[in-house]
């Protein structure tokens, strides 16, 4: 697998787009070019179910023209990188911008651009030569391990291996023009188990920038199998208020939801329940949340953000105290603050504020120790639905998990909801475990909320 063209050719396309935008009348412009080479293979039972391969390129041109009280902004994106197409798209972006209202806060950043491109350990060149057959073999091993782990596992949605390589090039009219490369490799297994009338599915996955750091394929299958088998015979529980323990698979969603409420765009739009809480205690003192764009090997790491700003480590919540919003240049200007280097951007639109590698700092105790501390409560292993309102903090989601009595798991649970208000839940976090496992860009150790409403029978 490879990215076909030398980076110089791609940088030349970015420069051409910047020049064409300027020629067409843009006061400022910036350009994002993303190249990717992706491959996916899925094995189900003994059969290869599909093999998928693709190489893609996308170009996004943001043009800004001088208006009466500020700059007018538009973004045009395309996969057609032919020189005349690039010129046409740049001119179209400028023409579109002239139709948009001037905004005194619009504009690309004036300074703060990354002055060096550190090696963040985002790929291993040797992984480019891995064969399709080798990844099919990984998926087969995971699938076989999952299927043979327990006689009640008689079916699956399959096991899937993926490899993706990407190159990101960003340039702007201040003269910044840099690129970096990254890779992402994954292995996923989703077995089904049956016992009488109960049929269940669950999964396990491993993701890394390096093939060599993926979990052993058979281990992926065995973990997926253990997760699905323990769900067999799940039942509902009576409606009650109990302590709720989120495991390492479900806790990251809580951290992600909190983070959507400290995003600068939600703050200036007053659509977050935390909009006026900067500097306040918003969570228990066990809660410290960090977003770090330069974590070596991190799945969200990048040397510069979607506006060319140097990425950095931002402490969002420190011992329960709200310390920082997540900002790009625009949201920062709206709030009178500098960007936090958190501009997230694809080719298809303007930058937006977003997280990089986001995590809750670990505390102490394994998941088994945390279970052992609960007299009567719920361990949540899966959440479904989107029942969260960032404006009020109201939280209500479908859940499945394990019921705990006297420090021990007594039976699996399903068809229940858990509900509360995120503002209150954060203050009620009374236990944070030690296990921090990265399966994406957000990670959290298991955490316990002292009391939530569980709705069931």
């Amino acid at each position, binding site marked *: 697998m490879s990215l076909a063209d030398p980076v110089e050719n791609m940088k030349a396309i970015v420069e051409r787009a910047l020049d064409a935008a300027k020629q067409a009348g843009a006061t400022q412009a910036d350009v994002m070019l993303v190249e990717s080479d992706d491959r996916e293979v899925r094995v*189900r039972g003994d*059969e290869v*179910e*599909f*093999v*998928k*391969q*693709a190489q*893609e390129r996308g170009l996004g041109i943001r043009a800004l023209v001088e208006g009466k009280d500020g700059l007018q*902004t*538009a*973004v*045009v*994106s*395309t*996969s057609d990188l032919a020189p005349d197409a690039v010129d046409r*798209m740049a001119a179209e*972006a400028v023409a*579109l911008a002239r*139709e*948009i209202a001037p*905004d005194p806060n*619009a504009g690309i950043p004036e300074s703060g651009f990354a002055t060096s491109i550190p090696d963040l350990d985002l790929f291993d060149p040797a992984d480019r030569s891995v064969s399709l057959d080798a990844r099919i073999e990984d998926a087969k091993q995971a699938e076989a391990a999952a299927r043979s782990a327990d006689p009640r596992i008689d*079916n699956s949605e399959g096991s899937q291996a993926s490899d993706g390589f990407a190159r990101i090039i960003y340039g702007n009219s201040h003269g910044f023009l840099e690129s970096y490369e990254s890779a992402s490799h994954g292995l996923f297994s989703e077995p089904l188990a049956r016992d009488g009338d109960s*049929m*269940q*599915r669950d999964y396990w996955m491993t993701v890394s920038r390096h093939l060599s750091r993926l979990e052993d394929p058979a281990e992926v299958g065995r973990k997926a199998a253990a997760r699905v088998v323990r*769900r067999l015979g*799940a039942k*509902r529980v009576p*409606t*009650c*208020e109990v302590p709720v323990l989120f495991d390492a698979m479900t806790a990251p969603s809580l951290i992600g939801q909190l983070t959507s409420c400290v995003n600068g765009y939600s703050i200036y*739009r*007053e*659509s977050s329940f935390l909009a006026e809480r900067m500097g306040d205690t918003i969570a228990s003192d066990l809660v410290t949340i960090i977003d770090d764009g330069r974590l070596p090997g991190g799945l969200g790491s990048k040397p510069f953000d979607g506006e060319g700003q140097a990425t950095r480590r931002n402490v969002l919540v420190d011992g329960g105290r709200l310390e920082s919003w997540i900002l790009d240049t625009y949201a920062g200007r709206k709030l009178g603050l500098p960007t936090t280097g958190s501009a997230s951007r694809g080719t298809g*639109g*303007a930058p937006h504020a977003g997280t990089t590698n986001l995590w809750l700092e670990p505390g102490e105790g394994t998941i088994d120790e945390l279970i052992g501390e609960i007299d009567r409560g719920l361990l949540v292993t899966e959440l*479904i*639905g*989107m*029942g969260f309102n960032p*404006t*009020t903090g*109201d939280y*209500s*989601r*479908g859940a*499945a998990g394990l019921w705990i009595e006297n420090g021990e798991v007594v039976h699996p649970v399903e*068809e*229940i*909801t*858990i*509900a*509360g*208000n995120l503002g209150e839940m954060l203050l009620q976090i009374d236990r944070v475990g030690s296990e921090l496992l990265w399966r994406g860009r957000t990670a959290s150790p298991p955490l316990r909320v002292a009391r939530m*409403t569980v*709705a*069931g*029978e």
Partner: protein
Amino acid sequence: MSNDASDSTSPASERALAFFQDEFALHDRSLATALDTALERQIDYADLYFEYTTTDSVALEEGIVKSGDRHLEQGVGVRAIRGERQGYAHSDDLSLDSARLAAGTARAIADETSGHAPVAIDSRGPERDLYPISTAPTDVPVADKVGWLNEIDRYARGKDNRISQVMASVVSQQKHVLVAASDGTRVADVLPLVRLNVQVLAADGSRREIGYQGAGGRFELADLQDPARWQTLVDEAIRIALLNLEAEACPAGAMDVVLGPGWPGILLHEAIGHGLEGDFNRKKTSAFSDKLGQRVAAEGVTVVDDGTIPGRRGSLNVDDEGTPTQRNVLIEDGILVGYMQDRLNAGLMGVAPTGNGRRESYAHLPLPRMTNTFMLAGEEEPEDILRSVDNGLYAVSFGGGQVDITSGKFVFSASEAYRIENGRIGAPVKGATLIGNGPDVLTRVSRIGHDLALDEGVGTCGKDGQGVPVGVGLPTIRVDALTVGGTEG
């Protein structure tokens, strides 16, 4: 075999064929050659999917139109099928050369070479056009859209002084597709899609609430720009925001629930729709596997998936494999009678495709997907249905939902709901998630109203990371003992 577009096809199909011939030199003979490349190996079926889509989006907040985006998506996806195996490759270079290259990759799922007969493309196209329009929504001048959004902003702010923020956006899309397959199929289509979103923030003291309403479909943008239509939509967003300022905590536990007409049809989409998609049933991973002919709903419950309703967001002249869409009855008077199929799964299950093979774009594999899914009307008065409940919940609007196909457990989240007390609508309650079990929830439908309505045209369904536009619909119904995920025990 024909290179001209003079067959008995609809104007949309003719325009699409002419577009791909003129802009990208995609003629029948050359399409056949690309398919021949895939068929040099032992392949059961191969298809090419060419797409050229323009999407533009204009958005207003804080009283000004701050952004305009235009996105051009073009490419080709090539698929080769052998048994249950699929080889798939796609390229963002919309040309025959890249189609041939991709065909070479896709056929790698088979080792054996074959002496196949050359593909003969046989000109076919949909004879109907479910979405005839005179102006592509992407051709409506941006200045018109900007002016319209400004008008919406002024109107919304003038309605109530508690409205402190207005966000509005208009999204326009024009998609050209061309499908050519090794069985000789060659179909093209032009699909318009428009959508207006309005979100308002209401503030009263320390309380803030959002109200959202959207509308859209495959029709002229001018239809949405009719003041009677968009003003109703803005009024609705404001009403929901103000109502939620007054909302009390939602009850928790199992209770009788009355669902209002229209968008609450998301219940059907999550509870039974996904579970009746062919792929899950062919693999027997659905809670509905092997239940054909069995009772899965109460008497009187009939559920259909219909891709042929003119102008609807979920409608298609042909699906993304070139199969004409149709009206498929899924549940008839409570009995499960049909699944939704794409070509691959229909073939493996020995049934006919049902026009449900859909894909997000050329960069995605087709899957069996829903179109517009709804329950047919009954005969009861909605008021009588409400009166029949002593203590329960009346839910009239929803956000999203999700389902676990295998266990059958599904959720959907209410965004406008009220307590029912002694048969009367009581206080509004905060949004809450409702959870149930797909294979039995419809057996507990005890009353069905005569007021079937389809939704406003804003649904997007996600499956395997692919989003496709869909519609839902429902008359007022009563469901006994559904679990409501509030906080009040």
